[in-house]
């Protein structure tokens, strides 16, 4: 008895040390692979910049993004502003600084992107694990629900709910998140079906592990690789959807600057050639989405080298 109590922490420590060094090795391998694939490095660089901009936006912004100055409206990039300030990327129809709004917009895009994936991922993983592990009518119900949802062009579903619920950050995250659950559920279900007959899952069952523990501690860690890849691509598509919904006026309230709503406002000034209002927010979306897509591609090759052949 005493042996067991003294041994267990040692074994745990040894395992955790082993785990740590394994993780360190994996991390090093990931960094090397990323440096070798220049695209992935570029994608990561863009992501780091966008994330830093999102975090430090308020300190980096030369202006308050909502401060209107009608005398200074529709100024081209580089125009001098009040005092010794400059509108580096121009000003919009209400005299607000485009650069400051762009920096703040990064927050909404990333926040909505990650939060929606967290919502959709959690729902999808739970549904997929339960469907795959138990099968039967639970599986049928979840999968048919998924079929119905996929039979709907997603943006329409989002429009329908947001029109009724009203615009807002939380509503947007919920709608976009719920829109993503099927993707995760299908992948997790397929993987769970394959894993539930494996020896180590049998072993966990035999040692009396409870079902939630088997699902979340034994099966889930083993299917994280494909989930990570899907999540990366999904953030990209959620950011695109968020921009489209904001563009349609269904996004967050008007006092929160977003790239999509900036583009929406730019439409009224195309004829008068106020190009900066349309070009910069669009480029911000393209670069961010591109970065997530590149990282997704790289992750797929890195985590599953068998797929690399054909991509």
């Amino acid at each position: 008895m005493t042996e067991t109590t003294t041994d267990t922490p040692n074994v745990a420590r040894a395992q955790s040390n082993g785990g740590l060094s394994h993780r360190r090795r994996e991390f090093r391998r990931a960094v090397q692979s990323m440096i070798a694939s220049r695209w992935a490095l570029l994608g990561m660089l863009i992501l780091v910049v966008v994330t830093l901009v999102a975090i430090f936006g308020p300190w980096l912004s030369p202006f308050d993004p909502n401060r209107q100055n009608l005398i200074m409206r529709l100024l081209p990039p580089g125009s001098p502003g009040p005092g010794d300030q400059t509108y580096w990327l121009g000003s919009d129809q209400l005299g607000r600084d485009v650069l400051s709004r762009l920096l703040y917009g990064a927050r909404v895009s990333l926040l909505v992107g990650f939060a929606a994936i967290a919502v959709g991922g959690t729902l999808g993983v739970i549904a997929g694990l339960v469907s795959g592990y138990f099968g039967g009518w639970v599986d049928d119900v979840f999968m048919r629900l998924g079929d119905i949802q996929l039979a709907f062009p997603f943006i329409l579903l989002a429009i329908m709910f947001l029109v009724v619920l009203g615009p807002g950050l939380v509503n947007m995250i919920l709608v976009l998140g719920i829109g993503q659950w099927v993707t995760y559920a299908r992948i997790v279900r397929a993987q769970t079906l394959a894993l539930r007959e494996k020896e180590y899952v049998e072993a966990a069952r035999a040692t009396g592990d409870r079902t939630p523990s088997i699902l979340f501690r034994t099966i889930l860690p083993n299917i994280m690789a494909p989930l990570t890849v899907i999540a990366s691509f999904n953030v990209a598509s959620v950011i695109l959807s968020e921009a489209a919904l904001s563009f349609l006026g269904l996004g967050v309230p008007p006092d929160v600057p977003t790239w999509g709503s900036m583009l929406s406002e730019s439409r009224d000034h195309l004829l008068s050639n106020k190009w900066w209002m349309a070009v910069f927010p669009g480029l911000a979306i393209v670069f961010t989405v591109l970065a997530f897509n590149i990282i997704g591609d790289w992750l797929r090759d890195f985590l599953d080298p068998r797929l690399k052949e054909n991509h």
Partner: protein
Amino acid sequence: MWTFLARRLMQSVVVVIGVTLISFISLQIGGDPTYLFVSESASTEEIETVRARLGFDRPLHVQYLSYVWNVLHGDFGVSLSYGQPAMQIVLEAMPATIELTIVSLVFAIGLSIPLGIYAALRRGKPADGGIMTLAMLGQSIPNFWMGIMMIMFFGLYWRWFPISGHVPFLEPLFEGDFSTAFRNLPQSLYYMIMPAIAIGTYTLARNARLVRSSMLEVLQQDYVRTARSKGISERRVIVNHALRNAWLPVVTMIGLEFGFVLGGVVVVETVFSYPGIGRLAFNAINQRDIPVVQASVILIAMIFIFLNLIVDLIYARLDPRVKY
């Protein structure tokens, strides 16, 4: 074949019921739906009258059944801003949307297949790298921004294409006026070029990548090696052996692409002031004209379900392994 058709039809019916259920829930989710059907200045009596008229005072399951009944009869209520039946307004806008969807799909799929095959055959060469880089970029550009940029450059700066408007083709065709329809066709296409490219680029990019990887996979198969070793010309190997099999995942994908294209139509029509269901829905969203929003969304969903059914049937025809 008939069993497969019947089973697939049954599935579509279930999905249609699901669609009505989702749209019904979307109405209820924000609280009393009566407020969605009255103007903001409506008096308490008016609200009560509308509630009773639309039946929102009845139990939910009764409301749902009557909702389904109405949807099946194309009755979405009267548009709050036009004062006409919502379905009628949406149906009038439909031919323009169908035209744009078809042109976008033809553009996207017509280009993605040769580009994907070409990239696969030039694997690792600069042409492959170039096409795949462009494809990656194409998947990252929001369709509505692409539309705005095209308006700026090709519409306003170079003045190559009209920045808005539409010349009907299907509408006179449906009315049996073939001469007008075909006289309109060149102009109709001319007006649709920019919106179709904006909508189709994402699909083009994604499909080109899919065709390429599907083709690469097939090219490594034994039967392609066998065909080559028999001395068959490379062209025949690709067309008769590789392409036939690389085709299947692409057909499945095309089914899913309808959804993206139809979703894209909603946003891009707004950019180009194109008089289809998308712009109608956009205006209805802004005016909170719920009957029109619901009719538009459900009609687009129905088109999507119908097209997917057709794609599945084509797939079953192409792949003998699909059990009937």
